[in-house]
C-alpha cells in the first residue's frame, strides 16, 4: 500500500487532535487530544521512515513515546492538583487571572 496514505491519515488525526484542544473544555480531554496529536506525529515519522528507507523516523518515534509518557506524569499531576482544589477540571473555570 502506498505509504502516502498514512501521511494523509496522520494529518487527519493531527487536525482532529488540534480541533479537540480548541473545542473541548475538560483539561483531561484537552490533554488527551494533545496526546492524539503526538501520536499523529509518530505515524508521520514512521511513514516517512518507510519512504526514505532509513531508521531515523522510527527511532524518533520511540523518543516521542518516552517524552509523551513524561508529559503525562507532569500533566496529570498538575491537572489533578487543580481538580482537588477546585472540584472542577474545566479550563473555562480556571480564569482567576484576567486582563
Amino acid at each position, binding site marked *: *500500500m*502506498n*505509504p*502516502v496514505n498514512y*501521511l494523509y491519515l496522520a494529518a487527519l488525526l*493531527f487536525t482532529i*487532535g*488540534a480541533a479537540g*484542544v480548541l473545542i473541548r473544555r475538560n*483539561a483531561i480531554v*484537552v*490533554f488527551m487530544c*494533545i496526546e492524539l*496529536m*503526538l501520536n*499523529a*506525529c509518530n505515524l*508521520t*515519522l514512521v*511513514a*516517512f*521512515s*518507510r*519512504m*526514505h*528507507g*532509513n*531508521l*531515523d*523516523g522510527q*527511532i*524518533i518515534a520511540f*523518543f*516521542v513515546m518516552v*517524552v509523551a509518557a*513524561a*508529559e503525562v506524569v*507532569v*500533566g496529570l*499531576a*498538575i*491537572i489533578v*492538583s*487543580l481538580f*482537588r*482544589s*477546585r472540584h472542577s477540571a474545566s*479550563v473555562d473555570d*480556571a*480564569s*482567576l*487571572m484576567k*486582563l
Partner: protein
Amino acid sequence: MSPTAVHSLWTTAAEPLDKIQAPDIEYGQLAPILIVVGAAIVGLLLEAFLPRRARYQAQVTLTVVALAASFAAIIALAQAGYGTTKANVAAMGAIAIDGPTLFLQGTILLASVVAVLTFAERRLDPETHGNHIDSFVAQAASVPGSDSEKSAVRAGFTTTEVYPLALFAIAGMLVFPAANDLLTLFVALEVFSLPLYLLCALARRKRLLSQEAAVKYFLLGAFSSAFMLFGIALLYGYAGSVSYARIAEVVDGSVRTIDPALADTMGNDALLLIGGALILMGLLFKVGAVPFHMWTPDVYQGAPTPVTGFMAAATKVAAFGALLRLLYVVLPGLRWDWRPVMWAIAIVTMLAGAIVAITQTDIKRLLAYSSIAHAGFILAGVIAFTPDGVSSVLFYLGAYSFVTIGAFAVVTLVRDAGGEATHLSKWAGLGRRSPLVAAVFAVFLLSFAGIPLTSGFSGKFAVFKAAAEGGAGALVVVGVLSSAIAAFFYIRVIVLMFFSEPKADGPTVAVPSAMTSTAIAAGVLVTLVLGLAPQYFLDLAGQASVFAR
C-alpha cells in the same frame, strides 16, 4: 510518489547485522551539560535519602556548586578555543560546540546561579511555628486551605525538590541552543519545559493562581510542542534526515547523492514550508512572541516570583539560541520565505507588547508584557541575518536576563499580609518609604526602557544597528516607536514610586538575606557595567557569533 520508490526495510533487517560501531562521545566538550545533569540526579538522591532538616542546606549548596563548576567548564572550553577556531559538532552530530553555544550556555548558567539564589531566600516572611519559610509551597500535594496543608506548614515542610527540578530545566536549556539535530532540539525542549510546568505550580501564597498558571502553561506548552513535533516530522520527511547540516544541504539543493525517495520528497515544497513554519511556531511560543504570547502574562503572574524571574531570563536565552541556529544554520536557503514572516511577527510583537503593557495594573503582568516587547526587539536583531545580528542578539540576551531576574527579585521584597503586593496602586510612594529599593527598581525600569548609560540602551542600540545594516530599516523605526511607548509606562511606575503619597495601609519592604541582595546587586552591576563600558562584552559576543555547521 510511486510505491516502487518505497524501500523495504525488512530485507536489510533480515541480513546479518554488521558490527555496530559504538558512538564517539566527546565527554570533555559536553562537560558543562553533563555536570548539571549529574548534579540534578544527585539532588534527587539527596531528596530521597537525607532527613528533611538537612535537605535545604545540601540542595542549595549542591546546586550552586554544580552551576559554578559547569560555568568553569564553559570558560575552560572557551579558553581552549572551542568558541572560535576549534568550533565543531560533537556527540555524533547531535550537539554543536561553537561560539553562540558557549556564550549562551555561559549566560544561562550565570543567570541561573542568580535565580537559584532568589529561590533559596528564606527571610522575606516572618518565621512561622519556628521555621524559616521560602517562596515555595510546604507540600504541593495538599489542597489549598485544607487541614493537611496547615499541618504541613506547622511541621515546617519545604519543597526542596525545586532545586533538582531547576537543575533539570537548566540542563535542558544548555542543550537547547546547542542542539544540532531536530530530535535533540525536541528532547531538550521537553527536558526544560516539564520541570518549569511543575515549578510554576509550587507557589506558597496564592496557590490557586499558581496552579491555574501551571495548567495553562502546561496545556499550551504541550500544544505548541506537538505542533513543533509535527513540523519536525515534516522536515524529516522533506530531507530524509533530522541533522541540521543535512537538511540545510537539501534545502540549498547542494546535496550530493539523491536517492529516488529523496528526489520525490525534496521536490515537495509544502513539506519544507509547513514543516519549517511549525518548528518556528514552537520556538516563537517559548520566546513569547505575538501571536503565540497568550500564556506569558498569566504564567508570569501566577508562578512563584523567583521562578518567574528564572523563566523570563533563562528560557528566553535558550529559545532565542535555538531560533538563531535554526534560521541561520538550517534554513538560510529559505530566508526569502521566512524573513517577511519574521518581519511581521517582530513588528506585531514590539507594538502589542508595548501597547498592552500600558493598561496593566499588576506589576508582574506589566513585566510580562514588557518581556513580550523585548522579545520583539531581539527578533529585530535575528532578522538582520548578519554576523552583527547574531552578536547583537547574544549581547542583548546577556544584558536582558540579569535585569529581569533583578527586577523580579525586587518584586519579591514588597509585601503585605497576603504575600507579595503586586498591584501597582500598592507601589505608590514606595520611594518615600524605602528609597534604596525604589531606586534599584527604577534603575531596572530605566534599563528596560533603554535609557542611555544602562545595559538596555547598549543592547537596543546593538540590535537596531544590526537590523538597520541588515536592511530592516523600517523595523528599526517601529522598534524605536514602541520603545518610546514602552518608556511611558516604565516612567509611569517610577513617577508612582517617587512622586505620589504613600498609602496608610501600604505594603512593607522586607529586608532580604544576603542571597536576594546578591541577586539584586548582580542585576544592578550588570546593568551599569554593560551600560557604561559595553565594549569588552560586545567584542566577546562578536567573537562568538559564528555557528559551526
